């Protein structure tokens, strides 16, 4: 049985008239078990492989090998299906045209699915909305499946009327999760990131076919380790308070503020998706009406809820004080993640400006990113930034854009922008 715990890191002291309370809440899950094995329902896995005409022979061969390696990771008994995606989605396995569109994994179905993958041929265009919609239909065709996860591989830009993909993403949001990978450099990071963020998954680039197999294995292994099918971050704030934002800040930065589902007038749920044995950090910012010096009050109850069951709770407090030594201190965790969130934004905005030809903005933003990555100890971001810019002064954030940049390096910087690093923690309360 999975066990959750919550820890809060904050400076609860506010100056006279202070209203804004910031806290990092770490939620840790232990004993998650294996997907679909908790007795609450079965897990379903769908592998979507881009089979459009743009897939070169090497990429296609690697994608086949990767998908087959992923099959090997799917635990027996798990419902699964394989989709071949082009300008329309085709159910490659199981080959049925009605009834349940997923089958349970065993030696025979694994063998049959593997054979179906072998028969993939690249042709046609890329209409990702149809892929997502078919995945949704397949999941809904097996009512026993309650934990739904998709592994999606594409190599090209979506070729659909604007809005179509967004509509499909909206239909899938809250219904299944998706980890997305882009092969090569002809796909759009922003587009695929939109899918992954909405569907509570990861996005990354697979620059060379040789890395395909390992990435697929890892994604599927992680998916199978998520023994807790679904959970919500539940945030209570007092009457008269305002939630400024709720953000996942580790392992990646994901703004959840707009994804609130009201539970009651004072409480809202934010989606977290499935959990394995892991630890995630959330930055919660709340504005409360100021109280008199010496007063203490609760600014937020931050809970993890499995359905209606609250399994962990952290208390975010506010205490008004006239001791400036207490009130001016910024909690180390809050400062760190505030910097990391700004880092992600600076990288994304810098790269967007660079793509649009606005070199001045790109230089400023990426310079700020270099500065933040160094200050917050994000070595991965630092090394990826250095492939895109020449750094004159790290501390001051003065950089020059490199004249020639590998497209893959730029995309890798973009996909990695939301990944954060952690610092050592000492509970404040």
């Amino acid at each position, binding site marked *: 049985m999975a066990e959750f715990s919550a820890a809060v890191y904050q400076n609860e002291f506010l100056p006279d008239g202070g209203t804004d309370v910031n806290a990092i809440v770490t939620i840790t899950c232990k004993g998650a078990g294996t997907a679909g094995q908790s007795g609450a329902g079965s897990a379903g896995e769908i592998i979507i492989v881009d089979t459009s005409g743009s897939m070169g022979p090497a990429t296609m061969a690697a994608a086949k090998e990767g998908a087959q390696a992923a099959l090997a990771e799917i635990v027996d008994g798990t419902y699964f299906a394989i989709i071949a995606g082009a300008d329309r989605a085709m159910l490659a396995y199981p080959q049925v045209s009605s009834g349940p569109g997923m089958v349970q994994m065993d030696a025979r179905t694994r063998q049959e699915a593997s054979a179906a993958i072998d028969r993939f041929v690249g042709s046609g265009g890329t209409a990702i909305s149809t892929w997502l919609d078919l995945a949704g239909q397949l999941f809904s065709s097996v009512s026993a499946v309650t934990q739904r996860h998709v592994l999606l591989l594409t190599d090209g830009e979506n070729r659909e009327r604007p809005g179509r993909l967004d509509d499909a993403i909206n239909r899938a949001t809250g219904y299944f999760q998706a980890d997305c990978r882009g092969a090569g450099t002809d796909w759009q990071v922003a587009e695929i990131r939109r899918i992954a963020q909405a569907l509570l998954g990861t996005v990354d680039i697979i620059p060379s076919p040789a890395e395909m197999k390992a990435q697929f294995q890892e994604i599927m292994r992680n998916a199978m380790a998520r023994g807790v099918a679904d959970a919500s971050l539940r945030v209570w704030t*007092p*009457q008269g308070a305002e939630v400024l934002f709720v953000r996942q800040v580790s392992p990646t930065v994901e703004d959840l503020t707009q994804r609130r589902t009201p539970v009651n007038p004072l409480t809202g749920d934010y989606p977290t998706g499935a959990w394995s044995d892991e630890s995630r950090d959330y930055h919660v910012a709340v504005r409360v009406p100021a109280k008199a010096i010496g*007063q*203490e*009050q*609760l*600014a937020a109850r931050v809970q993890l809820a499995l359905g209606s069951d609250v399994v962990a709770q952290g*208390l975010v407090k506010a205490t008004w004080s006239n001791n400036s030594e207490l009130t001016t201190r910024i909690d180390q965790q809050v400062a760190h993640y505030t910097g990391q969130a700004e880092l992600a934004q600076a990288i994304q905005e810098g790269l967007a400006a660079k793509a649009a030809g606005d070199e001045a903005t790109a230089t400023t933003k990426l310079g700020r990113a270099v500065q933040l990555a160094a200050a917050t100890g994000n070595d991965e971001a630092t090394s990826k930034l250095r492939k895109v810019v020449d750094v004159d002064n790290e501390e001051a954030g003065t950089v020059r854009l490199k004249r020639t940049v590998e497209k893959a390096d730029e995309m890798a910087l973009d996909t990695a922008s939301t990944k954060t690093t952690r610092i050592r923690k000492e509970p404040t309360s």
Partner: protein
Amino acid sequence: MNCPSCQAALAPGARFCENCGAQLGAAVAVPTPVAAASGGDPLGDAPISAPTRKPAAALPDPPAPGRRPCAECGGEVGPDLYCVECGTKAPSERDHFQEQPAPWVAGVCDKAIGKARNEDAMALLAGAQPGGRPGSRAVLIVMDGVSNSIDSDVASLAGARAAREVLRMPLPAGMGTPDSRDAAVRKVLGDAAAAANTAIVAVTDPDSTNPASATFTAAVLEGRRITWANIGDSRSYWLPDAGTPVQLSVDDSVAQAQMAAGVAREVAETGPQAHAITKWLGRDSEDQTPTVGSLEVQESGWLLACSDGLWNYASEPEALAAQVRAAATDDPLALALALVAFANGAGGHDNITAALARVDLAVDPAALGHNDHTPTPGGEPTDG
């Protein structure tokens, strides 16, 4: 059993956690003692003289108050002790608690605005029979944890509760002579102080270089008779409605010694050593014998047991009586709250405890109905 809030171990029957102050309320049932089922000896480890059932004369514990609503907005207070509506922190039950074992007996034990922690403690008992009537009984125990020692808030409460257990049964009548009765009563009150002392030592860290200590004041009303016992500088007063108010207990303090030597009260009680006590309970206590006295009251009024957090602002019996008159109430809880509010209003520099029993000799017996079991005055049954 453990605290649902902080997981600290709880004493049997605890109404709130002595570690974090979380109120346990009805969630924690008082455990029923189970007879030891030992193999050989049918009596097990139980003392041979232990009663097999609660004697009819034993006073019951005060009813557990429910969790009070939020003081700020009236909303429900959650198990985490914050209001579920407005988030205001509820005062911990240890910081402010009230007991009202009977309509005529109540007390308030309050942290006071000037203190961070409530080291005062209080434990009350009372029967249903109104004060002053034959057979009426009330026990008021007030203890003040010494604030420069460690965990004295835990110690004082444990001590007060332990003393309450000793005083649950009526005081003994002795062999029929006043002297023998005095000796028997003195023995029981000494036992109560000793029980409090044992409880304090039991919760004191054996390695502590600054062991917990506390004062001890017990005031027992039986019919018209007040019996008091004291160690340190918490006090009991008799405050009649019309007659001359008196301080019953005598402080064990430097100030008291100076007053005995002729120094004026206001000089002694405001001097640098005013609050230095010469006797206390705790591991480093040298003398745990209380000073004991008694008084037969002749008129209606209030029996008050209090800590120095109250009498600091009204030491003279007349000054306290004036505050009681100003409160103008017959309800002991309202009066205790008024006295605590008075001390807080005057500065609230120390924890405040006020425990009161109303003695009403003017009540028409017909209005009360008749009680066939009412013992005759002076002839109370004893458990000896």
